[in-house]
């Protein structure tokens, strides 16, 4: 069975978010909720939820038009519509009676071959299926999404033993391929995997913080050292809502066995109760552990004193001299200061608890690690963190501290290891290693790197053989910023691939494809006013990207996350792009007072000129490219990148990041047979007339306060490039002519104090300056 139509019942935050993400997959979805009392509009709740969602940032939708795929309705009038749905997700209140009553209605209304699932986060399958028919149990399961459904990649699947296998497969496959989810099959235990461990970690971190007399800033900093997102634990509680904790803890108290350690620490601390009672429920309420000072004229961040409950001005806390390296982390956990002891208590308890839950909640560490990475955005799952620290070291520390040692760890052996062929293995409940099997269609650069050595490498990039005569160029500098190393390895790779391979992918598995050119490398040349050095960096980038564009083999970009500036420009020079759906790409150079200098202006302009059905004449294409670059427009999804022409109409989008490399490889393979490099493009541009037109527009924006004086200066240089410089509309311009204009504009701007100020500000704060 294929999922071609879906329905969601319950238009709360989760239900609406799930409906939106199903729409992101291009699937029509009906969104139902109850009819409010005395309502004039019987679909009011669902309609309002959709309207509200359209104004939500970050958007639950990958394109505003996707909202058209969501049809609002109500469960009194529209149950008949459910006959069209292949999959019906229930996301109503966490009340077993309400859910079970609804299921009886759904069971009667839906087609017998449709799957019904619940998005419950707390209720066990056995409670939900109580007194339901046998046929219902064959088509019912739990599909537990994490909030927000578009962005959190975890989907926990809990199915009864007698579920129809084809239904389970259909939903799991759809969730994987079309929704891009990392599906983790869970056992029917309280809180499933991620929230069971996540709640334990939060509660431990909270209680230990109160007991340790530390500040929230200190505790959050200590957590982020271990790959926790920068919200830490207190920022996370503020985000999800403090009032959620008593509900969750009481749920666990009722459902967990008496000896479970989460029950032992499950009491709600007084501070939390008081905060909730007084309306301090986090970001949605008056504030949480952090808040913005009320009535202050400027933004003043405050933090709560965990002992007194009073707010004070928040102070940034940095743990100096400790990197993410295993040695540093181990030293930190072994230290004798309060913060060291805090970190040890939180992590030793959390990791031990996780280890003690195998096989209760999962058969092996991989499921738990995957769930924590994808559901809580941890950089390492608990067992990956254990391996990073060393299981042996960890157990020794437990022994020293007279803490209990979980069975899984007692052998002091790693949780993961690589066999002789380089295949990853994972330790199971019996402490035996079993190979980790990747689903078909998933190709991981990590796995390849475990098995082989790079073909060539330097500090910033490597080239890998990924099989079938395809090579993969990987950037691996910090944030994958591009520097002379990455560019020279790209040039070398072109030679290697030309002689030994049929095609090349540009891909990496970091969170971000590339944050653009490495500005810190530019800084010394700027300090010395060594303009020749700057010119050489510009030329190196231009030559490299041109060489990629005209390489005698197909080049496929496979980006995910940020692809900014030079990272966007490299994609513009690829033959094709297979993008992860979450692609945030743009030519953002004006933010640092520059114009794209590695062919970005040239390529984006060409795309606008060649766009079918664009308005005629020379100006529309120039105006569009000008506006896109001048405003440093960045796509908020791969779909929106197509509208900005950063991606072409023919570029592909992969929803599941784990499938990106395999999809890109398939794309490259398909291009090999008849591959011919593109024909060089010839531009005809109107020169000074177009510049005058653009300047009129920018001048008016400056007068009305929508652009600064220096914006106008940058814009005039951008206009110089996009208008073709001193040309006539009858004179041809080559790509090299366009690159020369880019270089000229870049070098002009880089010498200006306004650009120096923007660059300095960006390097210091990470944020653009408007001067």
């Amino acid at each position, binding site marked *: 069975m294929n999922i071609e139509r879906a329905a969601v019942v319950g238009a709360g935050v989760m239900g609406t978010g799930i409906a939106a993400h199903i729409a992101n997959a291009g699937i029509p979805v009906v969104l139902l909720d109850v009819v409010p009392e005395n309502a004039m509009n019987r679909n009011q709740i669902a309609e309002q939820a959709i309207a509200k969602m359209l104004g939500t940032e970050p958007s639950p939708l990958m394109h505003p038009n996707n909202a058209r795929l969501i049809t609002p309705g109500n469960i009194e009038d529209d149950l008949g519509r459910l006959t069209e749905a292949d999959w019906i997700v229930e996301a109503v209140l966490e009340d077993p009676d309400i859910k079970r009553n609804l299921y009886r209605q759904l069971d009667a209304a839906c087609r017998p071959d449709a799957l019904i699932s619940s998005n419950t986060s707390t209720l066990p399958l056995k409670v939900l299926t109580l007194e339901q028919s046998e046929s219902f149990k064959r088509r019912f399961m739990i599909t537990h999404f994490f909030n927000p459904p578009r962005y959190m990649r975890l989907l926990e699947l809990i199915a009864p033993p007698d579920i129809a296998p084809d239904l389970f497969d259909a939903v799991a496959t759809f969730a994987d391929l079309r929704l891009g989810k990392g599906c983790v099959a869970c056992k029917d235990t309280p809180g499933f995997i991620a929230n069971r461990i996540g709640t334990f970690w939060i509660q431990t971190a909270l209680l230990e913080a109160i007991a340790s007399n530390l500040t929230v800033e200190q505790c959050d900093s200590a957590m982020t050292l271990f790959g926790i997102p920068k919200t830490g634990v207190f920022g996370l509680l503020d985000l999800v809502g403090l009032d959620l904790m008593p509900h969750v803890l009481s749920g666990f108290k009722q459902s967990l066995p008496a000896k479970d350690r989460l029950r032992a620490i499950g009491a709600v601390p007084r501070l939390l109760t008081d905060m909730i009672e007084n309306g301090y429920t986090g970001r949605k309420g008056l504030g949480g552990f952090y808040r913005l000072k009320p009535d202050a004229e400027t933004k003043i961040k405050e933090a709560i004193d965990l002992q007194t409950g009073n707010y004070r001005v928040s102070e940034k806390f940095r743990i100096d001299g400790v990197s993410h390296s295993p040695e540093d982390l181990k030293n930190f956990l072994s230290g004798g200061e309060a913060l060291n002891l805090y970190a040890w208590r939180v992590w030793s308890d959390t990791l031990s608890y996780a280890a003690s839950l195998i096989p209760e909640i999962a058969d092996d560490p991989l499921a738990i690690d995957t769930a924590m990475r994808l559901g809580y955005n941890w950089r390492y799952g608990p067992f990956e963190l254990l391996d990073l620290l060393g299981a042996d070291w960890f157990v020794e520390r437990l022994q020293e501290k007279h803490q209990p040692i979980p069975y899984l760890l007692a052998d002091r052996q790693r949780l993961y290891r690589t066999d002789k062929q380089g295949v990853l293995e994972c330790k199971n409940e019996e402490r035996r290693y079993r190979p980790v099997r990747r689903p078909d269609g998933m190709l991981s650069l990590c796995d390849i790197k475990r098995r082989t050595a790079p073909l060539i490498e330097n500090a910033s990039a490597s080239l890998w053989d990924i099989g079938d005569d395809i090579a993969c160029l990987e950037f691996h500098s910090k944030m994958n910023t591009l520097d002379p190393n990455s560019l020279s390895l790209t040039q070398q790779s072109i030679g290697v691939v030309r002689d030994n391979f049929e095609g090349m992918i540009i891909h990496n598995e970091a969170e971000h494809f590339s944050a653009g050119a490495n500005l810190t490398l530019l800084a010394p040349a700027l300090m010395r006013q060594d303009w020749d050095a700057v010119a050489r960096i510009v030329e190196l980038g231009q030559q490299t990207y041109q060489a990629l564009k005209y390489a005698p083999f197909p080049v496929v970009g496979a980006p995910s996350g940020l692809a900014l500036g030079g990272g966007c420009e490299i994609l513009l020079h690829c033959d094709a792009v297979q993008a992860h759906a979450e692609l945030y790409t743009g030519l953002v150079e004006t933010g640092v007072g520059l114009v794209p200098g590695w062919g970005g202006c040239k390529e984006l302009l060409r795309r606008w000129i060649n766009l079918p059905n664009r*308005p*005629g*004449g*020379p*100006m*529309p294409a120039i105006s569009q490219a000008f506006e896109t670059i001048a405003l440093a427009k960045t796509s908020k999804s791969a779909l929106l990148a197509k509208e900005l022409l950063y991606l072409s109409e023919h570029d592909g989008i992969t929803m599941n990041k784990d499938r990106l490399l395999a999809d890109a490889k398939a794309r490259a393979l398909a291009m090999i047979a008849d591959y011919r490099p593109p024909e060089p493009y010839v531009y005809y541009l*109107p020169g*000074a*007339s*177009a*510049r*005058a*037109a653009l*300047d*009129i527009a920018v*001048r*008016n924006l400056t*007068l*009305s*306060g929508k652009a600064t004086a220096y914006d106008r200066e940058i814009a005039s240089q951008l206009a110089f490039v996009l208008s073709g410089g001193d040309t006539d509309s009858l004179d041809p311009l080559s790509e090299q002519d366009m690159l020369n204009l880019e270089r000229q504009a870049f070098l002009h701007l880089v010498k200006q104090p306004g650009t120096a100020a923007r660059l300095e500000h960006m390097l210091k704060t990470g944020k653009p300056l408007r001067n």
Partner: protein
Amino acid sequence: MNNVVIAGYARSPFTPAGKGELARVRPDDLAAQVVKALIDKCGVAPNAIEDLILGCAFPEGEQGLNLARLVVQLAELPISVAGMTVNRFCGSSMQAIHIAAGAIQMNAGEVFVCAGVESMSRVPMGGFNTLPHPGLYKKHPEAYMSMGETAENLARRYSIARRDQESFALVSQRKTQHARQNGDFADETVPILTHRGERIDQDGCPRPDSTAQDLADLKPAFLQENGSVTAATSSPLTDGAAAVLVCSETYADAHGLPKLARIKSIAVSACQPEIMGIGPVAATHKALQRAGLSLEDIDLVELNEAFAAQALAVLQELPIPTDKLNLDGGAIALGHPLGATGARITGKAASLLHRERKRYALATQCIGGGQGIATILEAVS
């Protein structure tokens, strides 16, 4: 010499560009429907029409080619009717009337349809391919200056306070609302059918509920520093079409056509582009002189409200009592579809002479680039 009369006037509803109900109507269709309705309304024999003269400020895209000739066919006029498209920016369709008047007086035709159209939704102000002369732009940037900035220049030069502009805008809104409630637009407005079959018959620009406070809260639209002109004191970007039937008085008498007004005199003038809004002053003086009249002789005035600041500057030079000015409101409330406005205010002035039983009316407007245009009408007793 042949007398020239206005024998009929019709316009489409005016709706805001982009978001209004006419946004999806092609300008050629819009003009054709208004022309057809005018001819039906006046009862003129289509075969008698010499020429369709159509004003349009940005004649490109869907407004391109020789739009007037295409509108002849779209309006199903006899194929023998000629067509000419005229561009004098905002003065385009008033210029169309002047051309017809001149032709009639030299026996070059008896019946003319003088129309104007602008879809500011579908052809942006400035057009799709603005390519200014770089040398001229460098030497005389004011030649390409935005209209908002020229309004700010007048506000500064004539010391027109922001609150005075806002009071003027509110009066325009109030007069328009009064006229709507009174049904004063019913005679002139012709419904437009969209290609989906929807019938558009109401003006969409007026904001009768705007309060002084609403206006005071707005940010300057064109000049951040010390700017005084806002969206509320500017005429909105508008879609619309208007048309008048211009013929010789002899023809009107012979065929029983109504005679709303006689054209007494006409004039165009030019001024500095950066204060283009003052254009009506010189044009009016010329027209008055040619008519042998003084401003005091004029009973009714249709002064186009491109901007409140611009209209107030003109009023400092041409003291026109409020009760003679824009009786049914002006462009700040109704909207200003550039190419159509000249036909609207001339047609309106003629209709008002008839309705108010007055003798002389003046229709005048400013023109981007620094020009003015004026028409003086006389009642046919």
